[in-house]
């Protein structure tokens, strides 16, 4: 079941920023990233949170979508509703997707449906019983176009500050709650491979136009 669009309409400020990002993307010319603290190009474009499910793995994996490549065993599987123009794949720089203080790994393309399945690694908060990255607090936005593998903690902090200045805020608590209700409780998986395959099923559900793409993640495993 999809989240209805009334959720989306409450993020007008983000939509304005998304329009700016769209204009950049339609130019089709990769631009050099803003280095260091200069993150003026930060734009929005995440229009809604449709699904949120925490995951935990027996075996950790390296999060290659940021420079430090931290090892991770837990985090969030999210389905975001995004401006499709911001996720058109191209070979130049693309806007980096952030969730709170983390870079998000995009599992699918999301161009047709506007629905992106993402993996957001996060430590476990044992006291709260879920990933430490609090979706009620952390905003979600597209930042400066650059390579995720070159984004480090300082860059994230800069992007976060720029996003806050631009008015990007976390989704309303009721929306997050609904998305978490959609996602349900923890999914416990063996490893990164199982996580990818699980995410692929989410792609087939939320972005059915990418069914064939997801099949590419679901090939029979060599035994």
């Amino acid at each position, binding site marked *: 079941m999809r989240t209805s669009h009334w959720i989306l309409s409450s993020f007008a400020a983000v939509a304005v920023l998304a329009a700016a990002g769209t204009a950049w993307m339609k130019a089709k010319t*990769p631009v050099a990233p803003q280095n260091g603290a200069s993150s003026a190009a930060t734009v929005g474009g995440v229009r809604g949170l449709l699904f949120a499910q925490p995951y935990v793995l027996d075996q950790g994996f390296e999060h290659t*979508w940021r420079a430090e490549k931290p090892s991770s065993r837990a985090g969030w599987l999210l389905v975001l509703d995004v401006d499709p123009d911001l996720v058109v794949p191209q*070979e*130049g720089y693309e806007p980096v997707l952030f969730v709170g203080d983390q870079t998000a790994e995009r599992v699918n393309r999301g161009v047709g449906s506007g629905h992106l399945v993402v993996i957001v690694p996060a430590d476990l908060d044992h006291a709260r019983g879920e990933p430490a990255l609090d979706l009620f607090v952390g905003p979600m936005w597209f930042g400066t176009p650059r390579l995720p593998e*070159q984004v480090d903690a300082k860059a994230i902090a800069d992007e976060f500050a720029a996003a806050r200045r631009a008015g990007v805020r976390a989704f309303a608590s009721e929306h997050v709650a609904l998305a978490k209700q959609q996602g349900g409780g923890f999914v416990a998986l063996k490893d990164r491979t199982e996580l990818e395959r699980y995410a692929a099923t989410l792609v087939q559900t939320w972005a059915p136009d990418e069914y064939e793409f997801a099949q590419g*993640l679901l090939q029979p495993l060599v035994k």
Partner: protein
Amino acid sequence: MHRDRSTALAAVQRVAAPSAIAALFAFGALAAPAAAQTVGASSLASGHGTAVTPEPRLGVLDIELAGESLSAYPHFHYVRTVEIGKRVSLAIDPTRYPSFVGQNADIYVVAHKTMAQWIADGTLIDARGAPTNFTFQPGTIQANTVMLDNGTLNADAGADLGVPYDVVVDFDQDGFLGAGDAIDGFAGEPGFFVVEDPGLPGPYAVTEIQYSGGSFLGQDTYYPTNIDQLGVLPLVVISHGNGHDYRWYDHIGYHLASWGCVVMSHQNNTVPGPESASVTTLTNTDYIFTNQGSIQNGALAGHLDPTRIVWIGHSRGGEGVVRAYNKIATGAYIPVNYLPSGVKLVSSIAPTEFLSVAQINPFSVNYHMFVGASDSDVTGGPTNAIVQSTPIYERSIGDKTFHSIQGAGHADFHNQSGNCWCTGPNLIGKAGTHPVVLSNYLALVKHYTEGSVAARDYFERTYDDFHSASIPANVIVANEHKDAAGTGNFVVDDFQTNTALNTSSSGAAVNVAVANPFEGLMQDLDGSFSWSSGVPMNGMCRAISGDTQRGLVFDWTTPSSLTFDVLTSQKDFSDDVALSFRACQGTRHPNTDSWNQPLTFGVELEDVFGNVTTTLDFGAFGRLTRTYQRSGTGTGSGWANEFSTLRIPMDAFTRHAPNFDLTQVAKIRFRFGVPGATLGRVGIDDIEIIAKGN
């Protein structure tokens, strides 16, 4: 006939007419050619590359005979390879071989034999059924050109590329190769090859399998269905680009597998960036070797050759494969199943250039690049270093080959429908792009993994001169090839050192009699293709900050010249194969716009005695493309400058010029205005004398 470098050192050397022919004729019935009478055998060891040692066995004359007629000077092109269905002829320049004149002979086309086989059995059996009888005439090479075959010779070599033939002139008409006979193919390479169209499928049925080894180990693998009968095969790995899919390269997979390769296209972690992509190239290559016993119930087990690996990458994946090689070459990554030397070829399709100059350096691996001049994603334009692919090519010091395809977009290189990511006139789509890709990949893979000699003509000759018949006639390609550094060629001027205009990198004088010469870094500095006299390297997207690739640009509106003196120590060209240089038209320059068509100019040699060869219009061997007429990035039309490498066979300079002394060459002169284009703007680089064996 030319010599494959792999055999150059081991084989008994071919005698380069006319310099050392005299020694042979002591065994034969013929008199030595005219030039040989004035050239001492002592000159043999002073040329470039491998020294020539006469091989007088049987007393045969081992010379170039087979090739293709040309409609203009030099009238004949001795070639290595002809495609099935095309005419092959024999030609003799009677001014170089006057002893042939008046003699009647039987001319045989025979299945190639090695020299040892010829010595053991000189029987002549004509592959056409019967020899051609011919009486050699005085006068010109045109009068002594004999059609040998009009396209009927067998080209079916199974999964090999090309059926080898030798050509024999049997003067005594006894049906045996013996003293006094002439042969093309006695030592070293065969006389010529007839090849199947490399753009068409090979002989094997292909099996495709898709499987996963886990995270970013999804693989789509193609192999000959009868692989269990085929032994160890080359492995070709394909690393896709950003937003692409590993299952979008069926065209390459099926094609190369049908010719006897195992092709594996893998999930590539491109979105984080090319550094991450390079990791998946490396891990997937190791994965298939490690797990060959498990994949498809072990169908591949024992059939993957870790010493014959090819990496092909597209876009971010194209940068990734270079980064991957860079990492194994520097020890930053240690492969489990192969050595760096096992990677025989790295090819990038429209690669990005995010990482540093040091990180994206292919070093000495054999390197190849395709770019599409219509690419609207990795544009090749001067606005941004990330989208300039060509500096990566320039950094390579291995054998390197480059193809720029006009009308091809970024997505035309894979086989998924949708946005072509292309812009500009005369778009060719996948239908035009794929035959270029398939035929050239087959040639490159066959040469670098199997040592195919026949394949070399596909990348050493200009596209204008020779390419797969399966490529549509409207496709325009500019291609370059340069032999690896240190392989024996004499570099006359590569503009990297001795940077004064009047001195070549080899240290000799240069006479510059052209307009607006500028020697410098081949970097378009103003971010625009608009012509500006303040940016003489306009259109040269060959270097970015930190690169060192230099060249020379200039123009002319009246007859002009550029003369390179040859060092005395390097004056002997008699045992060399060709004069090579690369040149391009300067995009959007008023002269280029005015000429508005493919361009040629003249080349001549001068010996120390003042003899000058006929000024050769190199158009017989290919022309410089008009830059692709794409607009944008400034005013006017014309995209990045497109270099073509011209290899002019040394014999072409001395056609009908028996007095010219190739052992005593003093000057190489390029003439502009006459012959060729009456005006123009060009860039020129890498002027070399190609040694035998290259």
